[in-house]
């Protein structure tokens, strides 16, 4: 796949296959194209895919609107979730859940059931109960925003989960509870694409595959051992191999 942002080509012939039920990690230097890849998958307006396709359940995601991709089970945990004053966190999330249920012909969760569900997940994630009544990400700390992304993920139950630097800016307690949330979602069916700069989150969620992205292409794929090599020798070790 080739993709650009504005006039700048970022993804330059990227080829990647995600295995169902597996955890894939993408690592790479700044500007390698990691976030552009995640944005391209969810249909962000910044990214223009100029060549290639993204096939999911036999359909090309590039032909679908962002909300259709979400309803089909694609979820991106944003690196910097936007703050939306005035939109209540619970109201928004129930709307999103009901949209998904409607899309799949399921009975819509009513307000009482939803509140019960939200309270359960809030407690599991160690979030404050007032998260229900607060405006979406409005005035949230960095850690609260990341936990709120995981809360949305747990409630919406997507099938392909992209975590874009979910670990950045988290203290050790927050990292642990976010990782526990991710681990609760592992069921052998869900696929994870974890974008990270650091190996510390990988102490909690154990990847099946590690991919190195450089200059818009996957240049190396391996197992968890690749993380150790990167940690010890940096990206230069990968360069040497190429």
């Amino acid at each position: 796949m080739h993709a650009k942002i504005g006039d700048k080509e970022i993804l330059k012939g990227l080829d990647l296959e995600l295995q169902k039920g597996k955890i894939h990690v993408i690592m790479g230097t700044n500007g390698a194209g990691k976030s552009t890849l995640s944005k391209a998958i969810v249909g962000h307006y910044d990214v223009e895919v100029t060549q290639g396709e993204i096939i999911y359940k036999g359909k090309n995601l590039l032909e679908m609107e962002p909300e259709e991709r979400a309803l089909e089970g694609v979820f991106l945990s944003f690196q910097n979730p936007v703050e939306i004053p005035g939109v209540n966190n619970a109201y928004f999330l129930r709307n999103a859940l009901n949209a998904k249920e409607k899309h799949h012909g399921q009975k819509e969760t009513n307000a009482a059931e939803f509140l019960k569900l939200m309270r359960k997940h809030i407690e599991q994630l160690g979030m404050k109960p007032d998260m229900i009544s607060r405006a979406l990400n409005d005035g949230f700390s960095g850690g609260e925003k990341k936990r709120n992304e995981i809360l949305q993920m747990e409630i919406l139950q997507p099938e392909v989960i992209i975590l874009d630097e979910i670990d950045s800016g988290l203290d050790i307690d927050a990292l642990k509870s976010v990782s526990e949330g991710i681990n609760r979602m592992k069921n052998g069916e869900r696929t994870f694409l974890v974008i990270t700069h650091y190996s510390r989150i990988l102490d909690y969620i154990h990847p099946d595959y590690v991919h190195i992205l450089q200059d818009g292409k996957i240049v190396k794929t391996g197992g968890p051992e690749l993380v150790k090599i990167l940690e010890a020798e940096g990206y230069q070790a990968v360069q040497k191999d190429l």
Partner: protein
Amino acid sequence: MQAVTLSLADARHPLYERLSELGIPGNKTEQYKNFAIKPLLAKEYAFKEAKQVEPKEGSRVVIENGVVVESPKNVKISFEEDFKADEEHYDALYFMSHVLSKSVIRLEIDADAVVEIEHRISEKERLFAYRLCVTTPPNGRVEIMETFDIKESQNALLLYGVDAEVARDATLRWVRHENAEIDNAVVIGSHRYNVAKQGAIELKTFDFGSGLALHLYKIDLDNYAWTDAQHLLLATKEARRGNVVHINHNQPYAKSVHEARAILKDKATGIFDGKIMVGHEAKYSNAKQNSKAILLGEHAHMYAKPQLEIYTDELEASHGSTIGQLEEETLFYLRSRGVALDDAKKMLVLAFANTLIETLGEGEAFDKIHADFEAAYYV
């Protein structure tokens, strides 16, 4: 407009003199220049003075075609021919509406009362001109909910206004709710709220729909008096609607918080012309003004003119204005969770509007205004 015959005695009256000084508003008159007033005033309307009758007892004050037809027990209605209007008002139509109204409808309201005033216009192609005067009892709190039923008033012009006196230590909460359901009725309201020492006026206006409407306010604040003035506008189709507001801090420690929000769809035009004047005497004043507008229609327009005019050094003041579209990143975030584009837009617009609607607190007014907002949004 149909000619009105004046006697020489009338012509010497201060209100006529002031009207003649200000002149009939036209396209160059500052407060009307975005409203297209000229064709409205050039039009022929049938006009006759309203003949007041004894109103029947009801649950609210109903003014039908300028005649008070219904009034509740806790409001005493009288008609005052020698009403002393505010000769310093900046708006010519304030004086014109006084001149055209034979008498002012005075509403004396009990302390702690909640009163609904409904304006009902049921005749087409006519000019209706009348004035209301409301006085709050000292130390009391009065709440007014003002509504309009003008759906049968095609091509009519309602030229009216309120003169309110808020007594010392009293609070007047005035909620004006206009839900314009037809495109060719016009409402022009020219008002004056005078707030005595330590008094307060909470002015909340909710204006939704199409057609033409402009409200012009002059709010005068005495020592320690304050106002919290909020306007929410949702204009649709080819509407031209808005507010011109002059808030005068005349004495020390006066406080004003002035906030306007507008959502403009289709080819609608919104007007916000707000000026807070802090006079020489008004030291230690606090004045805040903010105007925000969202343009949803490709051909929608917003004229925003927030102004502070300050004649003293010792005060706190701020003002700001933003006009824009819904943020793409915010819309994308909602869509990325499965919310359809139209629903995402509605969610953001409601959030924008709710900031003001929610200040009403839970109750009948909140429910009605919230429902009317949603209905107007989907037109």
